[in-house]
């Protein structure tokens, strides 16, 4: 199999982000919250302060490194929640059809009609800021695309010979959905999931930027951008590095999603072997 550039670059970027997040305590130079020292306030990037320091003298490099934890946790977990909800609803709707399909379709249309960020904002307003509410808010608002894809796949797979054969062989509905339908629709679901992770990272940044994400002083890329806003002309590095981190992570996830789609696409599947 020929290695595709988007898959490799995307995979490397994403792996790098995960690596940084996991090893943050070892990679960071200082504690991201406690090591404030006004003597070092607003230092530009240098060999000592790789990404510079903020107005309280905290090391931006260390804060970006720790910020990866928040962004990736939110990105991965909220997208997992979305995928589980989307697959459960879409798969069952496509498989059973009938009134359940109508209900799920209506629900999906409603979700598609409401901008997911606004909806997440509303949920956050009720739950209050914090990591858990972030996960819930983003996990409940972005499943409609996964649901659509799962439903469409289930509809087309339902008429496949092996699904009918499974019925004839006495498989129950749940067993058919899990052993026959789910593995066969996993390709597009994984692709949508990867791309969704990228948009969840962006949504987290947006919500944190608006002050609804992780509470300061704990760093997240979005809240760092928000804090850096006022000093964007005097200390641009405060915005540049967290912004770059978001950019590279989302770029990596999107490239990875595209690359996975290239391999998992049924049309190219036959060419793979």
């Amino acid at each position: 199999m020929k290695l595709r550039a988007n898959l490799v670059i995307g995979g490397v970027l994403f792996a790098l982000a995960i690596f940084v997040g996991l090893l943050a305590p070892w990679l960071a130079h200082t504690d991201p919250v406690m090591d404030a020292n006004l003597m070092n306030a607003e230092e530009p990037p240098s060999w000592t302060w790789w990404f510079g320091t903020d107005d309280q003298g905290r090391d931006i490099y260390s804060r970006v490194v720790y910020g990866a934890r928040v962004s990736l946790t939110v990105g991965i977990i909220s997208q997992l929640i979305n995928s589980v909800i989307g697959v459960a609803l879409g798969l069952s709707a496509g498989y059973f059809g009938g009134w359940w399909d109508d209900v799920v379709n209506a629900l999906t249309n409603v979700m598609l009609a409401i901008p997911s960020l606004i909806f997440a904002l509303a949920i956050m307003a009720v739950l209050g800021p914090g990591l858990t509410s972030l996960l819930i808010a983003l996990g409940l608002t972005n499943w409609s695309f996964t649901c659509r894809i799962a439903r469409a796949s289930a509809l087309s797979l339902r008429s496949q010979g092996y699904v009918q054969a499974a019925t004839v062989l006495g498989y129950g509905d749940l067993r058919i959905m899990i052993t026959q339908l789910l593995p066969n629709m996993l390709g597009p679901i994984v692709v949508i999931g990867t791309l969704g992770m990228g948009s969840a990272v962006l949504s987290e940044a947006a919500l944190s930027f608006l002050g609804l994400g992780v509470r300061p002083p704990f760093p997240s890329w979005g809240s760092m951008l928000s804090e850096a806003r006022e000093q964007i002309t005097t200390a641009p590095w405060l915005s540049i590095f967290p912004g770059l981190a978001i950019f590279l992570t989302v770029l990596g996830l999107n490239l990875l999603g595209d690359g996975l789609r290239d391999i998992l696409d049924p049309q190219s599947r036959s060419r793979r072997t």
Partner: protein
Amino acid sequence: MTGTPLLEVEDLRIDLDDGSRRVAAAEGISFRIDRGETFGLVGESGCGKSITALALIGLLRPPLSIGGGVIRFEGKEIQHLSAAKQRDLRGNRIAMIFQEPMTALNPVSPVGRQIAEMFVLHKGKSWREANQLAVEALASVRVSAPERRVKDYPHQLSGGMRQRVMIAIALACDPELLIADEPTTALDVTVQAEIIELMRNLCAERGTAILMISHDLGLVANVCRRVAVMYAGRIVEERGSADIFRAPSHPYTQGLVDSLPRLGSRAALGRSRLKEIAGVVPAITNFPNGCRFNPRCAQATDICRTSAPETDVLEAGGLVRCHHHA
């Protein structure tokens, strides 16, 4: 249990609901299959043979439904069983193999796992035992190196090999009845013969009855002891398979037999055209009055156009549904 037949179908009617009205896609279907017996159902596309099979295993889906009649399996009525009880029956006591071995296997699951799943599902085995049994099952359908083959995915196997796997899955739980719906239509003629032979031998060894469904009268007569011919939703003739070739009774069966090419017939009879049955099968929604074969039948008279013939018992054994049967 010699008295009760394995499967008994009485006056089965299958309705097609096209939104505004209900029409009978098949009606008056009656036959019985004894334990270990081989029974064939022959007819052209759309005559109702496949939906009859689906009705037997409780898998008719809207717009089709059972409109009347009785299906008894081992003496017990099964047409009104709960979904869960019917599911216990399917795959376990009544198994089925399909026309398309290419699509009847899950492409993302190794074949061994697909066989093993039957033992887990119906026999309550652990996956460990089930995997072991799957190797044996694969060996029993004469697949070489079954230990290695169980790990293969369907796309790595040839059509004949896949149909063997299907047979292994179908026979995994030692069912009493195997329904084979056009089991070899998609295969080469040489592979076809092997698969039929394998299916027949395995079923004979285990005492599994076969209900074979096909449009190929020659094939069915070769495998089955008794054959029923269906036309437009009705069984028109049911005979021993030797008799049906020697002395077909119903004009439609005669037409079918005459339309088969015979080896050496040109030498014996000189250059001659194969006979065909004029006309086409009527649509389900538009069956003719009286005998449904009357518009295509050379022997049709007035009575054929007005009243549907009842089933008559032939002196030589067998049943026929014709006013003018030979």
